[in-house]
């Protein structure tokens, strides 16, 4: 059973977008998938756990947005007139966009855990989780933190070579 008042209690399905390889289009696919689902009338959230190279904010023209906190945690950035697209990324927490996030694993893990449990998503049909390339801290922590919830599955992105 889910923890009482869990921030993910209102999320129907969670989809991870993965690839071992960088630069194959994970963030692009995550963005397009989210927009397509929204066009189909679904409420969608995107969680961008690429701490070193967060691409999602720019792809949705939200790079100048700021995030706030509420009683139940972080308030995601809401996009569109209908606010049917919610977004969370470390990109929003950086004071200067060119600042490198030079963190070792344990600090990254702590933030990812926070992102997964402390964002007040509300009711969503789909939460899409965009990941960095590789199979390391971010991936282990994300899967561990999401395990109690409705993990629909993973989409793997590649290029032909």
């Amino acid at each position, binding site marked *: 059973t889910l923890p009482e008042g869990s921030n993910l209690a209102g999320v129907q399905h969670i989809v991870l977008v993965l690839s071992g390889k*960088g*630069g194959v289009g994970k963030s692009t696919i995550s963005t397009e998938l989210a927009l397509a689902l929204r066009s189909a009338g679904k409420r969608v959230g995107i969680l961008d756990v690429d701490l*070193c190279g967060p691409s999602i904010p720019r792809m949705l023209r939200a790079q100048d947005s700021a995030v706030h906190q509420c009683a139940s945690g972080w308030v995601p950035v809401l996009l569109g007139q209908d606010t049917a697209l919610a977004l969370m990324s470390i990109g929003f927490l950086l004071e200067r966009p060119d600042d490198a996030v030079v963190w070792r694993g344990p600090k990254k893990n702590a933030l990812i855990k926070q992102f997964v449990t402390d964002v007040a998503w509300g009711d969503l049909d789909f939460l899409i989780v965009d990941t960095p390339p590789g*199979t390391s801290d971010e991936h282990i922590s994300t899967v561990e933190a999401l395990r109690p919830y409705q993990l629909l599955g993973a989409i793997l992105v590649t290029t032909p070579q």
Partner: protein
Amino acid sequence: AEAAELRARLRAVRHTVLVLSGKGGVGKSTFSALLAHGLAADETKQVALLDIDICGPSIPKMMGLEGEQVHQSGSGWSPVYVEENLGVMSVGFLLSSPDDAVIWRGPKKNGLIKQFLRDVDWGEVDYLVVDTPPGTSDEHLALVQLLGAARIDGAVILTTPQEVSLQDVRKEINFCRKVKLPIIGVVENMSGFVCPKCKNESQIFPPTTGGAEMMCQNLNVSLLGKVPLDPQIGKSCDRGQSFLAEAPESPATLSYRNIIQRIQEYCEQHHFQEEKIM
């Protein structure tokens, strides 16, 4: 004792070049492999290629060394030799199957990188080229801390022309400045495509914000060169062959060769200045 071992190994290395990018998939490994081949073309130079991308080691395949194993001797781990003067080390050689995922957290990755630097018996090396994974994390910090920023000639930073890449690469440039790692310059890969049939040029990844050229101007770093897209590059990489050798007439080969020469000149000058000081 460990630190002394590490220092001893590194004393035998004349020049160290790191190949970095904030962004994945922009051609770091491709460039590292070609840089190593290019430097090793001079048979009097001893070249070492170290692949510290633990999750996605591409170097074994690109160098035609898949399936090779690492041997231990009294003097440490032996690199796998492509040519007499070109040795390679990668976690790829330690996997029992190429599809095995290495799912390690930071501290374990750092441990392996330390081992690579301490225990691989490269011998006397003129150029050590280090290929890295994308990002600014454990692997990059470990490398800079273990090698010592002062001992690294500099970093070559790879990008592609579009803003989504540049925004990650600016972070990488800031990382280098933060840890006092000199930047040799930036290489813009996938910079245009010339159709071999009609010779028309297309911008497959349009530089919507001015590409690497604008970024380098703004951040006061050197643009080492722009390399156009050539489908032969990917094919050569997949087949483990040197693209420079397989397509000597390609405009991409010309670009790569110019860039490699600039890097060589930078390193030689760097050394010369050190000697001057001594």
